[in-house]
């Protein structure tokens, strides 16, 4: 049975390791999916917010000249009160408009936008949250400016941890169930093999138990037991020989 316990522990260990890897992979994937979803939603919002600015650019006006820009941005922010800030960039990448109370993340947002300047839509992350934006096409097919939306990360982080916690509970349940099933299957599937081990164990136990009385009472043995008896006989004859040598030596 000892071998069964060891194999069971191995199978359970492998299962636990695999489940933990699965848990890590799933959590990582969830974090990525969630971040993409937030980014895509913010792009939709930025795209919608960009429409009035796009109209101004089409008329040949510089993007900074839109007079009610802050109002447009504040109205867009009302669609989700967790939006931290919305920025409007000019052709050179400078921030020309922002929502009220902007916390000073503008330069960082501008730097991310500058790195992804080739894309019409883009999203990424900075220390204070998710960021997504769209670029506004100018009259000569270059960018006349852009809009970026900054969204806090707090809610997303909480959701990732909540999801990881929920999955951890599931992993624990699956592990307990899987380990019990593994024990049962190993017990049934390895019956023949385990009984062969047990026979070896029994032969050794018989040998140990019968050694002291084997001269008179032990039944004739076969197999491993007979081999153990044979080795013991050899040992005893060697011991006898040593005694004989000791007894015969000159004193």
């Amino acid at each position, binding site marked *: 049975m000892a071998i069964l316990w060891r194999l069971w522990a191995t199978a359970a260990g492998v299962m636990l390791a695999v489940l933990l890897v699965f848990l890590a992979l799933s959590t990582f994937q969830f974090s990525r999916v969630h971040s993409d979803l937030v980014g895509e939603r913010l792009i939709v919002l930025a795209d919608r917010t960009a429409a009035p600015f796009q109209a101004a650019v089409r008329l040949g006006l510089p993007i900074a000249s839109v007079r009610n820009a802050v109002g447009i941005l504040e109205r867009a922010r009302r669609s989700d009160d967790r939006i931290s800030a919305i920025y409007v960039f000019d052709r050179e990448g400078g921030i020309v408009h922002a929502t009220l109370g902007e916390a000073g993340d503008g330069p960082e947002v501008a730097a991310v936008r500058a790195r992804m300047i080739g894309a019409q839509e883009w999203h990424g992350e900075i220390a204070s949250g998710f960021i997504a934006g769209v670029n506004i096409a100018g009259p000569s097919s270059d960018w006349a400016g852009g809009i970026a939306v900054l969204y806090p990360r707090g809610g997303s982080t909480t959701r990732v941890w909540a999801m990881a916690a929920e999955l951890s509970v599931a992993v624990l349940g*699956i592990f307990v169930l899987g380990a019990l099933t593994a024990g049962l299957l190993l017990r049934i599937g390895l019956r023949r093999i385990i009984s062969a081990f047990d026979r070896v164990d*029994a*032969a050794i136990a018989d040998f140990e138990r019968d050694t002291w009385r084997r001269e008179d009472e032990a039944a004739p043995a076969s197999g491993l037991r007979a081999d153990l008896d044979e080795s013991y006989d050899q040992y005893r004859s060697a011991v006898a020989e040593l005694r004989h040598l000791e007894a015969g030596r000159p004193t």
Partner: protein
Amino acid sequence: MSASTALPEPGLLRARLIAILTAIMVAVVAMFGMATLAAFDRAIAPELENRTRLIGSILSSEIQRTLDLGVPFRALGGLEAYIGETINEFDEISRITIVQGGDNVIAEITRDEAPTLLQRSGLADVAGIRSVQFAFPVLIGNELVGRIEVVGSPQFVETRLRDVFMDVSVLAVVALLLGVELALVVAAASVWKPYGRVLRLLAGQMAGDFSQTIRATGVSGVRRAAVRLNEQAEDLARRAQALPPALRQSLGDGAAGVASAMRLQRMRYSDFNDVRLALFLFATATEITASFLPIYARDAARPAWLSGELSAAAPLGVYLIAVAALSPFGGALSRRFGARRAFVASAVPTAVALASMAIADSLVAVTLWRGVIGIFYALATIACQEYTIRAGSTREASQSSSAFVGMIFGGAFCGSVLGGVIGGRFGFPAALFLGALMALTAGGVAYSAMRGRAGEPAAPQSPVPQPDAPAVRGNGLAFWSLTLCVSIPTSATTAIFIWYLAPLGLAARGYPPADVARIIMLYYLASTLIGPLANGLAKGRGGTAVPVVTGAAFAGVILLYFRSASDIWAVLALVSGCGIGHALIRAPMTALAVELAGKSRRMMSALRFSERAGALAGLSASALLLGGSDPSSTLGLLGGVSLAGGLGFAIVLGLSRDRDRGAPV
């Protein structure tokens, strides 16, 4: 030893463990998959609601703006086209309905979607998962004239989770193979090896030899037996040591048991299973680049005059040259320094080379380090081979060749999968660093597991036992026919198609590294699964030639049939078909080559060298001639050569055996 106390063969335990662990892994993956889907659905619902609400509000405001201009609701033209565009643009929406008044539907578009896995299994209801639904009012002035209903798509989450499920599934297979290897190591360390030690010590003591003791390890009974037998030997040694010197000297001519006890030493027992885990981990480490090496090399900085195709093939070519160059000396080196030292010494530079590949940014560096890996791969695998041959009887050595191939291919399978998954998620350098870590782990495992006498240096003249000599004499013509017609085409196909064309072609079609790995792994998976079947076929009436010829013909037909097909299913068929065909060839081919070569070690070395040289020549020709053109002609050529080679070898073998039968004895 009688049958009643004989332990079952490790093969039986392996088969049972594979069946049991497969059942458990399938159940675990299924349960985990369901739990993940349900948790994802719940966790992502708020964000999906936000998105759906935003899309609905945009839709609503657009319609509202039109109605505010005085256009009657019913007169809105092209509504269905408009909401159709919206549905196509946003995957997370499955239905948009525009309702006038109470229940007059004037436009509705529904995405055609199959029910989700959770819905089909009924778990969606149990877990309380429902599609997101919102209704937005449509107003004219202060009058409510209708509403817009938006329903979220339940398929959306499952689509986004496809990658993670694919990764989980292939990692489960990796875990299965690793779990089986670990379980076998545990079983070997607990029972087989300690029991083998006890039996060997017992055999000695039965013959009156009390010169050895053993490590008392293993499950209780075996350990107690070891302690008992050790005590017998130690007691005799103590008694003999207590004799006066004159008497001790006289023992040399007297009782064998007492005399042997004077030279008491610890037995250093070796077993085939000692190398299992180390070799498996080492093969995993070195093949961690299997699914992305051509892409990694092609994207590295290279001289302007070098084409992308040649760059992609360069590390593979240098690897093959390195393996071929070291193979003839590997055995001698391993015997000179000892298999254990050779393996451990190979693991460290392999780890360094893998880590260096991770930080290398030029093709020269990538190629150079891959060459270093090739040298030490050859040395490490040959060291393991030498160890198993010295550890077992000649019969066991012969039988172990298929298990050996199985371990290397099992490791290669795990390497290709891990490399693809880790490379796809965290970048190729992360996968290479993991490979370096695994190579070091393999070295550590080998250091502790290969402690037996078989791991020590062998005297230069000491003959290494060969597998049992065949009853028939060597057959040179058939041997060279096997080498040219089967062995070389098989390794050329592996190098050209599996290592080079398939990863490049799949990457060119836009498949990410993880997908490439999942497809390439089918080759190694087929090799791992079909290997035992090939051994079964080899034991049949036709002998080892049957699976070899069948495999060559099968791989040839598959390559010819699917050479021009361009869809992904054809690639899957090609990769797995080649895996099946080559699995039928590989393990029996070693036994067949030994049989045909007679006792000639030189011919076996020539076979190994020809394999590498053929693969290298094929790979070079392919890289030089392909130049970004359609690879179907290369695949067709490989298929034709495999098929014709298999049939040609069968004819040569048949004719030469007929000639041998007719020859006077």
